[in-house]
């Protein structure tokens, strides 16, 4: 192409340039540091725009419009000095200039500026103080320095869950337990739920009588039965109906229900808020022009790494990522080249393997169902075989779930190899399957429990549930959740102590084939995240039946942090398959949201559908737990009643839905319009670039032809030091450099 002819390097191969280019506004905006500030006129942007935005052209305008700018700067907001890309001396000079200007302002403006500065400094100090208060700040910094940002996100996720659980516990405690506890001291009169002496309200005590053997205490502690059953731990203990204080009556049943809704809502809002940042980034990533190579080259190195080992590992992981990307490109090419016959074969294989996966999942779910039923029946029969066997029967569902969750990921990762997807998709798909497996297993457990509870000898059940076996079914469900939590914790501790540490010892000291094949432990982030999301889902479901479960989970995650940290530092090396930090945050919170959605389902069903037990709990006088709300509403003054009825009526719901739909359509249309504009601007930019090159070419030709030596070359006021971006070191050619012509212009 003709344009290429202009661009060639000089003889030494170094890049020379046209001094005219120096004066282009876009170049000026990126001037390097100068010792002598030739840039006497102010070079800050006088507009509200940030640096480097399209207003970069305005930079040099200031040289010509100095008096005008002075006026303007008094009116518009100035960018803070520290955000300018200038050397310190210049910034100081700017600052004194601004101060001088400030003197000329009116008193009001002066006061406003100084108060702004003071407030900004105050805010900075407050932020610094707040961040120093963050839990485990030092530990997380250490982990970040040693293992990079991927694993850091796991630990900060763990910290988030600790805080979340603590807040949930505080909500439950202050609204449900605290009134009961302080009632005697605040002269409150507690009215308990009346036993209407019907057959449904028989609640046999499960406390052990007579001589209690020591190991039975341990069984009780681990299974939540026995002496633990009639404590604040479980739903059944809260038989309080109302508490009458001197001025006000506290409706505990209502508080119980509302606090449940409150903590679910709070979790939702907090997670969505936290994931908003990651979501925006993920949207950007899914654009078709996403740049994976650029991102790795320019944003790949973690500047936080200070440890030599970590640096070496980061380098190798970057290398691995780049090689994987190149491999992906190759595979994409291969996929595009597939023939029809091959495609049919691949689809057939995929169908068969997916059916196989579904079969495996169905088998796992069925085994969980069977195990739950067996465990429940074993607990019902009072025949005690043996301490250990009893414990196993109690924990059978948990054991089966854990086994299933251990085997299926291995199976999935083997199967996916035969399905011939691209590597990135493989990882994501396997992960999705594992998430599905983990969270649905809880659902299956609850379903099997529910089927047991509502399974009476004569249909339909008299009390709505099986009152013979489950006089207080919520407590039983609470106990199952409690057992799941405890077993989860025990599993994590046991795996760390009995698998990870020995593995490290073997690999370190033994030189046999086993050690080489097994290799050193890797900190597999996705599996670990799934583990704690699983625990958190159980916590959300279980809090309704076991109000102290969040406190137990807080303590559990607290210890898990330290266990994982110790294990990480001593046993692990970073994963060879690096997990990108930015999208991983979004992934964690996305899975957590799925867990929350899954947790809301059983809670909603049991609150609204299943008859609450008549023998225990705060909802004895109602049919379902939800009924307390309409009952309370009917006791409110009529004004509030009409308002609430209006809010819950169909008319309101439908119109709200319609308005939301309209808003969504509007936003989607806006996004589409923006995308179109962006594409147009991109094309325009390419065209402008070509225009510029064309003009420069013409200019160079004209310069070459002109016999007079260009005066521009003489009037260079730059000091012969490094930072004058171009030239003085180089020969003053009028040629522009360019990379070899074959890689140049697209059409």
């Amino acid at each position, binding site marked *: 192409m003709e344009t290429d002819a202009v661009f060639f390097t000089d003889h030494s191969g170094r*890049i020379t340039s046209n001094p005219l280019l120096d004066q282009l506004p*876009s170049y000026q905006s*990126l001037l*390097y*540091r100068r010792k002598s500030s030739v840039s006497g006129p102010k070079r800050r942007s006088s507009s509200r725009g*940030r640096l*480097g*935005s399209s207003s970069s052209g305005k930079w040099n305008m200031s040289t010509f419009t100095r008096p005008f700018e002075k006026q303007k700067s008094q009116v518009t907001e100035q960018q803070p000095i*520290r*955000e300018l*890309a200038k*050397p*310190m001396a210049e*910034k100081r000079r700017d600052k004194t200039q601004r101060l001088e200007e400030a003197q000329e302002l009116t008193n009001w403006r002066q006061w406003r500026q100084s108060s702004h500065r003071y407030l900004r*400094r105050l805010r900075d*100090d407050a932020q610094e103080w707040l961040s120093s208060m963050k839990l485990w700040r030092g530990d997380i*910094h250490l982990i*970040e*320095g040693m293992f990079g*940002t991927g694993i850091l996100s796991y630990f900060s996720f763990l910290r988030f869950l600790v805080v979340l659980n603590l807040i949930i516990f505080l909500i439950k405690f202050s609204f449900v337990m605290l009134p009961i506890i302080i009632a005697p001291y605040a002269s409150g009169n507690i009215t308990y739920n009346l036993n209407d002496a019907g057959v449904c309200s028989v609640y046999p005590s499960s406390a052990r009588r007579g001589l209690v053997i020591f190991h039975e205490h341990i069984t009780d502690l681990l299974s939540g039965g026995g002496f633990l059953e009639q404590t604040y731990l479980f739903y059944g203990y809260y038989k309080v109906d109302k508490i009458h204080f001197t001025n006000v009556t506290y409706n505990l049943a209502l508080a119980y229900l509302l606090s449940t809704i409150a903590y679910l809502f709070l979790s939702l809002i907090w997670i969505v808020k936290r994931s908003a940042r990651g979501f925006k*980034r993920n949207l*950007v*990533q899914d654009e078709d022009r*996403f*740049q*994976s*190579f*650029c*991102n790795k*080259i*320019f*944003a790949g*190195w973690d*500047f*936080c790494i*200070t*440890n030599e080992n970590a*640096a070496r590992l980061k*380098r190798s992981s970057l*290398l691995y990522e*780049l*090689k994987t990307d*190149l491999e992906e490109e190759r595979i994409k090419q291969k996929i595009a080249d597939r023939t029809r016959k091959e495609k049919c074969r691949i689809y057939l294989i995929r169908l068969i393997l997916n059916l196989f996966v579904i079969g495996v999942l169905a088998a796992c779910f069925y085994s969980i169902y069977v195990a739950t039923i067996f465990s429940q029946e074993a607990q019902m029969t009072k025949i005690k075989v043996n301490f250990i066997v009893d414990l196993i029967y109690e924990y059978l569902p948990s054991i089966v779930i854990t086994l299933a969750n251990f085997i299926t990921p291995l199976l999935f990762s083997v199967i996916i190899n035969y399905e011939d997807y691209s590597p990135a998709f493989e990882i994501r798909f396997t992960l999705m399957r594992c998430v599905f497996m983990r969270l649905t297993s809880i659902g299956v457990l609850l379903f099997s429990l529910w089927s047991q509870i509502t399974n009476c000898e004569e249909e339909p059940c008299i009390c709505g549930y099986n009152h013979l076996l489950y006089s207080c079914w919520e407590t039983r469900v609470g106990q199952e959740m409690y057992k799941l939590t405890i077993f989860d914790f025990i599993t994590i501790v046991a795996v760390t102590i009995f698998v990870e540490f020995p593995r490290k010892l073997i690999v370190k000291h033994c030189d046999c084939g086993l050690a080489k094949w097994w290799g050193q432990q890797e900190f597999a982030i996705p599996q670990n995240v799934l583990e704690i999301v699983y625990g958190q889902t159980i916590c959300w479901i279980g809090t309704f039946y076991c109000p102290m479960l969040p406190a137990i989970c807080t303590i559990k995650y607290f210890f898990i942090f330290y266990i994982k940290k110790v294990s990480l530092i001593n046993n692990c090396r970073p994963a060879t398959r690096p997990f*990108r930090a*930015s999208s991983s945050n979004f992934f964690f919170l996305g899975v957590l949201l799925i867990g929350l959605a899954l947790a809301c389902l059983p809670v909603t069903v049991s609150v609204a559908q299943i008859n609450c037990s008549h023998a225990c709990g705060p909802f004895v006088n109602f049919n379902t737990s939800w009924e307390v709300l309409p009952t309370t509403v009917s006791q409110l003054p009529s004004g509030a009643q009409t308002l609430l009825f209006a809010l819950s009526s169909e008319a309101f719901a439908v119109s709200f839905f319609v308005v939301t739909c309209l808003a969504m359509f509007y936003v989607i249309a806006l996004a589409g319009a923006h995308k179109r504009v962006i594409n147009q601007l991109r094309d325009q*930019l*390419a065209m*402008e*670039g070509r225009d*510029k090159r064309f003009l420069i070419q013409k200019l160079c030709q004209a310069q070459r032809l002109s016999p007079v030596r260009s005066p521009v070359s003489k009037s260079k006021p730059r000091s012969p*030091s*490094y*930072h004058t971006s*171009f030239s003085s070191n180089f020969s003053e050619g009028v040629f522009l*450099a*360019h*990379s070899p012509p074959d*890689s*140049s*212009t697209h059409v």
Partner: protein
Amino acid sequence: MGNKQTTFTDEQLEAFQDCTFFTRKEILRLHSRYRELAPHLVPLDYTNNPDIRVPLALIVTMPELKENPFRDRIVETFSEDGQGNLSFNDFVDMFSALCETSPRELKTIYAFKIYDFNRDNFICKDDLQQTLTLLTKGELTEDEVLLVCDKALEEADLDGDSKLSFSDFQNMISKAPDFLRSSTSCYHGNSLAHN
């Protein structure tokens, strides 16, 4: 720390606070780190703005920079003479630009300067190759390096001149999700304990 220190006058500290993202305490800590690098060269008393520069070879021994493949380029970019000799002003500037609170735009500008090896205001293919070689310490083959650079240019070059101007770079960085986090140097007040 407050009024007892004699390293800087109050006006100097205020000026530093306005011109960087550090608080008073952090600036004093920075000064002690700076001094640690060359105790015989750097005076304790900076009230009269001595013109001292610590050479490149000493600065890159700092733990925050030691493992960074671009350490030489970073220090050169922030130095006034272009050779990597930093005065205290430059030193503070460097860490201020790299710290957590500095905005994305500022980091983008400095990142562009860092990656522009031949200082021609463009990141051309040669610059890209040098960046990649430093990053991977020469572990990729020649072909792979060329391929990666081609792909990167393809992704980011908007105006079609086969090199990245600042606006190309800026546009690309705005879409790079890891940039802000990875270009933050976790500067610690005291010397880090080495693990």
